[in-house]
């Protein structure tokens, strides 16, 4: 690979414009950069932003219907509040404890003890009620939310007030059954196991550049216009009720499905519309599992990405990658 001559710079200054920001949802624009940059950000958000998740389970007693591995797996998938994860150590790098869970730098201990009494009622063991953390910073996300609610800072974005607030069901116990265990949560990244991924969905799209050939459009009757507008499965176009002109109502609803272009061709009006993707602007949609807030996720992702780039840059000088080896 040829390097650019010294002095020539391809540096760009991407701009971010946040459109919407909720606790677990964000929508923002990323401009003046290329697809590789946008995709790198997406990949890092999904797979490399560290969180905390239960990684080791010691079962003392389990007489439930689910086997030990199944319960351990279910525990692992419970999202834990991980705002502190960036500051924690990976267990494998932790010198203090060799990762056996006895040190607060790399791990958090959880306890669970539930026993269905002889009442005959099925006992639901949930993340909210039964999983006890030894560190208030790291706890199941629904517990954290309940705590916030109790404090009075009711999450304004928690949309669904009638929703199910029982927490995450771990196992159901019948009369006489018991579950007792000790679990250790550790820091990790989504690349290793999906349980450490803080992102539920991260997706981006190219901003479309839609140009209607107005002259050609005028040759259409209102009916033709309507049928053309309705050929798009998403509501991208609209007809102005006053002027009866076709207008682009929501360009971002366009899914690059070419339906309208095909329709125009089928109507014998090729070139009625021209749609191009803007190569340098992206619209991101981020949803988190609750382990991190959307804001934290984005910021942490940028931090991680920057660290990775630093590592590449440092590689030129010397091979020492420092703590970044973990991310490569």
């Amino acid at each position, binding site marked *: 690979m040829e390097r650019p001559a010294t002095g020539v710079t391809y540096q760009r200054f991407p701009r971010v414009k946040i459109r919407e920001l909720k606790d677990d949802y964000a929508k923002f624009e990323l401009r003046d950069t290329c697809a*590789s940059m946008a995709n790198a950000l*997406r*990949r890092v958000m999904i797979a490399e932003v560290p969180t905390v998740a239960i990684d080791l389970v010691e079962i003392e007693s389990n007489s439930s219907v689910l086997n030990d*591995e199944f319960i351990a797996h279910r525990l692992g998938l419970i999202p834990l509040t991980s705002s502190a994860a960036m500051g924690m150590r990976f267990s494998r790098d932790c010198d203090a404890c060799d990762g056996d869970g006895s040190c607060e730098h790399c791990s958090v201990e959880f306890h669970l003890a539930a026993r269905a009494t002889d009442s005959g009622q099925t006992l639901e063991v949930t993340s909210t009620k039964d999983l006890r953390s030894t560190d208030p910073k790291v706890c199941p996300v629904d517990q954290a939310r309940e705590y916030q609610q109790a404090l009075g800072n009711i999450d304004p974005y928690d949309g669904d007030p009638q929703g199910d607030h029982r927490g995450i069901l771990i196992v159901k116990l019948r009369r006489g059954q018991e579950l007792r265990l000790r679990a250790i949560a550790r820091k990790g990244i989504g690349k290793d196991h999906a349980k450490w991924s803080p992102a539920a969905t991260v997706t*981006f799209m190219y901003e479309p550049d839609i140009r209607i050939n107005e002259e050609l459009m005028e040759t259409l009757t209102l009916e033709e216009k309507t049928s053309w507008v309705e050929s798009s*499965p998403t509501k991208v176009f609209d007809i102005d009720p006053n002027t009866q002109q076709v207008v682009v109502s929501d360009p971002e*609803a366009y*899914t690059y499905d070419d339906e309208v272009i095909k329709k125009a061709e089928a109507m014998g009006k090729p070139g009625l519309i021209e749609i191009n993707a803007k190569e340098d602007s992206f619209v991101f949609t981020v949803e988190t599992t609750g382990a991190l807030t959307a804001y934290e996720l984005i910021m942490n992702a940028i931090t991680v990405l920057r660290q990775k780039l630093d590592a590449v840059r440092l590689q030129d000088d010397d091979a020492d990658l420092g703590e970044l080896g973990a991310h490569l």
Partner: protein
Amino acid sequence: MPTAPEKSPAAAAAADYATLRELYRPHIESFDYFLDEGLDKMLLSIRPMEITDPSSNATLRNILRASLNFLFRSCSSKLCHLRGADSRKLIYHGEEATEMGGYFISGGMERLIRILIIQKRNYPMSMVRSSFVKRGEGYTDKAVVIRCVHLDQSSSVTVKLYYLQNGSARLGFWFGGREVLLPVGIVLKALVDTSDWEIGASLTCCYSDKHGNGKGVVGTELIGERTQIILDEVRALSLITRKQCLVHIGKYFRSVMDGFEKDDYETVAEAVIKDYILVHLQNDNHAKFNLLIFMLQKLYALVDQTASPDNPDALQFQEALLPGYLITVFLKDRIQDWMRKSKRVILEELTKNKSFELSNSMEIRKILSKHTTFVGRAIESLIKVGRANSQSMLDLPQRDGMTIQAERLNFHRYISHFRSVHRGAAFAKMRTTTVRKLLPESWGFLCPVHTPDGEPCGLLNHMTSTCRVSSCYNSEGAIKDFQKIKDKLLSELVRGGMTPLLPKIEHAGPPEILHVHLDGCIVGSIASAKIDEIVNYLRRLKLLSHPATPEDLEVGYVPLSLGGAYPGLYLFTSPARFVRPVKNLVSLPGGEPSIELIGPFEQAFMEIKCPDGGNGGRGTLFPATHEEIHPTAILSVVANLTPWSDHNQSPRNMYQCQMAKQTMGFSGQALKFRTDVKAFHLQTPQTPIVRTATYKKYHMDEFPSGTNAIVAVLSYTGYDMEDAMILNKSAVDRGMFRGDIYQTECIDLSSKRRENVPEVFAKSRLSRDTSDVIDSDGLPRVGEAVVPNEQYYSVYNTLTGAIRPVRLKGTEPATIDYVAVNGANSKGFLEKVNIRLRRKRNPIIGDKFSSRHGQKGVCSQLWPDIDMPFSEHTGMRPDLIINPHAFPSRMTIAMLIESIAAKAGSLHGKFIDATPFASSVKKEGENSSKYDSIVDELGPMLASYGFNYHGVEVLYSGLFGTYMNCEIFIGPVYYQRLRHMVSDKFQVRTTGRVDQVTRQPIGGRKHGGGIRFGEMERDALLAHGASYLLHDRLHTCSDYHIADVCSLCGSLLTATVIKSETQKKSKRNMLGVNTLKPPKNFACQACQTNKGMETVAMPYVFRYLAAELAAMNIKLDLRLSNRRESPPGNES
């Protein structure tokens, strides 16, 4: 087509699974009948045995006191303690809520008796078979065969009426292991007091010269001559009266019939007639005479080609061999055998022991008690190994393979066992494939889709979901009184216009008059003009559930035809016939749905239309009288579960039927209480979004077997070529397709006790290690993980006091899931335990998955989430990627529709009905389907949520972040994980054990062997000229050996170690001299010198060959040379 809202699970559990129970009925009811009535009747039908003391002339009669102790029970039979238990009680007892029984428990295994297809009982069938010629000189290939079954179902005898070249006929039946052939004239005369004229008149009545060759004429003018020949044959033996004929028969049989040594010839002949000739008519000799006349007429019609032969492979002339019946027959045979043996034992005792008297019942009981278990053991072995051991064939089609194990791999497989019918093991070896052919006669009874491909194809069929088997129980659950039904039916027939026959056959025949057969007995005749009327009358009675007509009455009306099937009205009320419900188009007064049960015999002559509203191309001449209830009635339970199977290429549906049975699903909910040898269990199964009506009907949600995976159809990275599929690693991390294998080890220390030394489970007292897997009782702790080669239980030898720890076999770690102690021995020590091990089986590369459309594939990569393509609209990443090349040649269109439908269904939060042939059913009060195709119905559902009408989406590459130019077809498809997993199959070896004799690596995965580099592989390397690799594979990596060869005598075997050399060596060793390996320490024993010794590299087997040859006095001579040019270097 959204389905109605689902019932809550609790409500579903409350339902008593009546639809499921229906599927098991043939198995349970036939066995119930055996217990209720069959057993008693069978015992009564056994002829009492008489033993006479030769010295005192005292006789002992009837030594049979039925004291049979059954070592078995059929689950859910009337003996079963769970009979009639509701699901709540079953769960309480640790059983499945859907447990329906129908199997026997033997040695901890659940085994069921396989339903076999056999010839229809009590129906004379005309057959053409080349093997008949071999019966003797003058025999032809034509015969009329009737399989007669006793009314009490305790035995059956097949009687064949062979046609001879001279125009006569022979009656053949199997007697004591060989076929007895009697001239038919003798039998006719022996049956009733009759005259030659009467026989002649009865036989010739089917011919009348006024009809010529018109429709329905079966007789020809040849019949007169043939009658003469038959009668002449008898006369030639100077047999005139009935008595003479009986004596003639009796003479022949007295020596071979048991228990008739002292009777006169007539009694013997009467017994033969009762027990072997047309046994279903019991003692009614007139009926036997009439039937025999009819059979002769049918035989001659076959010979003269006025009636066509009946196809023995068609279901029309077949019925089922049911478990209860098999047990009755076999048990009767065993009891009779036991009686014969007992008699012999008593007679022996009489001759040996003078003080022994027949009046001493205590003594007799003592003698007999020595082999009381004889009968019980035979029945047990029938169930355990499926072997019906008997001297005679019992008129059964096979002896082995009567039972199969009811595997609970998943519910599809389990239910299939109970619905399967086998054509018989004899046909599996046959080279002709005609028996395997799918014939139109089996329409609606046997599923055309659900048969395995390969060896048992077409022989192992499955009953359709609506197919039933007629039983001895009526719909109220009471045992049918066949005699009463017969009487009532006869009076109804007479009312309908039948002329009853008293007692002689009417002297007329087709085409004016048709005979009426009721269960193989000619009961009368009807003018053929009136027959349509009476058939309709009977069907009407059936619909009105008249007591004369049981609901499964078969009204087999064979109409007059030109050279077709032999006409007549054949009525059947017997059990073990296949029946199925169809709609009768006759409107009943009450307006009730007129569902009629029809059998395969009558179906062939009925007009049944498809419920699509059309008439199926019928003209006005043959209007449809019946209508199918739903087209899916032709499919089995498993085939019915394939969504939209009418849109798939047909072999794909067959593949799905097989793969559904290999799916790793929920094998059972009572897994915790079961000790199956191997059980597969899927951890996180789902209910399919797209399902057929059958899914709910048979409560398949109790046993889900797959996952709704988001499937993208695209060629991505090349890792999905050739039916490979890419799984999303993150989806697997989150639990998709995770599962376990449960294996139960039954350790019985008493069974493999060595030298009578009792062993018990115990732990060494010396070991104080509490972290050990083995608990203080010598058994493993539940929940403990065990790695291969780790000790997991220990055994204490009570004699030597040695502790023998047992290590875990295999290469896979396991978890102790459950330990069950099966009682203790007399001293209170543990001797028998079941240890259930659990092995984790998460999806890995090489595991097999399949959709419900015969599209199987192997996981080739577990790709992380970030690398999977994603949808910009929803951000979804597929769980699974398959290659688009999977579709064009396989044409599994239903899979594509399923993807669209499941997507639409999940968007709308509804299950989608995918019942096949739904568009072929005309719905009442609804103008024919609103849409032309399913896609036109589903497309708008997708579009209403902003998705593409055709189910495609724009996906972005996960690697580059750019969108793909082609729209990708993506949506949820129900995927099954199949039980074939690499963990059970991979084979790898670098070094390891070698064969003792050849020193070549051993084979076999279990022993750590290699995969054979065989002849074909060798050929491939030769063709490539890869000689070095070939040498490496076949020699260096195999049995490389350096042999010492004497170049003087050329012997490979004479090399011996020189003693003196070694002595010198040891001396030098002692002196501390540096030991260099002496160059030649071998000498040829034959030449007595070491001069010519050379070392040659060769395969060790070659040396072995030399040794073997030497043992045969053949010397193998090696000529060694260093010359390069001599073509092969070292050659013998």
